[in-house]
């Protein structure tokens, strides 16, 4: 069980890091999602791996750590929201510039965009 959890975290982190190092936005976003899955399992495991135990302390009975489950819920919600946000921003950048490379291409200080009218939506 420990081996399975540990190798799952390791594999997902490795895949995530590999994908993040690509330069296109799609692999980077998939890599970020992969990393957040890895960290979720990791947080879960940091409360010790136990099978079939309730997250409630009853008299004398064994229990599993409930706090890490609460932490992981928070982490899932946040990473979900952040992934949605970066998908929208990457789409916006793709539609605006026509390519989906992450990072700024080196060039001379670019001219500023024309100032939009005040109150423009």
């Amino acid at each position, binding site marked *: 069980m420990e081996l399975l959890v540990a190798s799952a975290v390791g594999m997902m982190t490795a895949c995530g890091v590999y994908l993040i190092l690509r330069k296109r936005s799609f692999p980077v976003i998939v890599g970020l999602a992969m990393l957040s899955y890895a960290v979720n399992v990791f947080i879960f495991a940091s409360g010790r791996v136990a099978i079939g135990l309730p997250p409630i302390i009853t008299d004398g009975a064994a229990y599993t750590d409930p706090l890490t489950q609460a*932490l992981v819920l928070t982490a899932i919600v946040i990473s979900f929201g*952040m992934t949605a946000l970066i998908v929208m921003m990457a789409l*916006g*950048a793709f539609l605006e510039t026509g390519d989906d490379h*992450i990072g700024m291409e080196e060039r001379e200080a670019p001219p*500023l965009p024309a100032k939009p009218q005040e109150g423009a939506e």
Partner: protein
Amino acid sequence: MNHWIIAPVILPALLAPFIVLVMRHDLSLQRIFSTTGTAVLAAISLVLLYTAATNPPEVYFLGNWPAPFGIVLVLDRLSAMMIALTAVLALLVQLYAIGTGWDARGNHFHALFQFQLMGLCGAFLTGDAFNLFVFFEVLLIASYGLMIHGGGANRLKAGVQYVAYNLVGSTLFLFALATIYSVTGTLNMADLAVKVAELPAGDAALLRVGAVLLLLVFAVKGALVPLQFWLPATYSFAPGVVAALFAVMTKVGAYAVIRVFTLIFPPETAATGTLFADLLMPAAVVTLALGAIGVMGATGMARLVAFAAIGSMGTLFIAVSQFTPQAMTAAFYYMLHSTLATAILFLVVDLVQDRRRDDTLRTPLPPIAQHGLLAALFFGGAIAMAGMPPLSGFLGKMLVLDATRGADMTLIWTAILVTSLITVVGFSRAGSAVFWKAYAITTTQAHPEPKREPLAFGMVLALMAALVALTVMAGPVTAWLDDTSAELFDRTAYINAVLPTAKE
């Protein structure tokens, strides 16, 4: 229990959705409510500053759950100072945004601004490591929105890069917290301090891994080399007002380093020792050097200021890495100074960009509207940033130099003095390229009419006045900061406030 402690979090948290839901189509209402909210926040923060200065650390138990089971907010001198700095800067920056019409160039500026304040205040107040993560995310997600405010291809591209970088940082934060939790079984900072001090030797290796991961996360936020890559593009493509507000965001990284590595992992901890000081100091020196070289080599004004901001973080982290009360006082003074100086420079650059329609330092362009006034403001900001007398940058660097008379004195003094010279040269080069060479151009165009932006100029002048006040009042301010760092290094007061039953 002093309920005002939670007000800096609650007020923007309620105001922001109210602005989105009720008045999203009415900019004037948004401006009135948002500015009033920030002004009230500034007033509350000053009251909190006063109570923190006269009382020992105060604790707010959320839901009245006793620590370490519930989340706590802790108000001490350091957190009160950071909140006051944030609120005052935010108020000035927000009025500048209204004065220049930046808030009208996209939707939801004011709502995002309030959410950003909520995240900043929460991060400064919280006494729980996981809650710190949550507030980091709140301030980051608002900063993503603010960063791409106004749109444009370059800004969006820089924004995607910024978000990706920080998402990796957040994942790293979670890995660090989970590692520390698996060793100590707690995430309350005061409880962590107690548990880490009595940790069995067998767990020290895992704890060190967790703590260094945490240091890396804060280094991402604080733009410490080698994790500073996000900063130049983000700050130079973000709207000028937002970049000025972000001046306090790198300070969140510095604050987190100061808080965590004095309270939880002080240098006398058996498990970690001086590991963090040894890692921080060389990184800070390289950061400072990189910032100065960037100032020298920048091709655009906004990039120039962004690199100057990196350099100032280097100086700040050099002082922090000493982990002595005297050096911490210097770090606090420099933190106040560099936040204001960075904000002034970003606002001045924004005014110049708006009139010049180009950011380049390579080719001179004809004089712009209000040429002389802007040149004078840039000159003032540059003097402060480079650390020349008579402004507070000079005093701040003096304090840092004075506090680093130790084993590494030669390295640190050389680094700070040489980079100051390079920064001075870089700023004079930029100033002459933008403001002096403009007169060498013969143009048929008439001199442009001055733009009437009294509110915007007023706010830049107000920031400048704050900087002058910081210089003139340097004596009383450093005396107050001395007490602040004394309180910071007196860990038992903090721990006893949070855990009244703690044995220590």
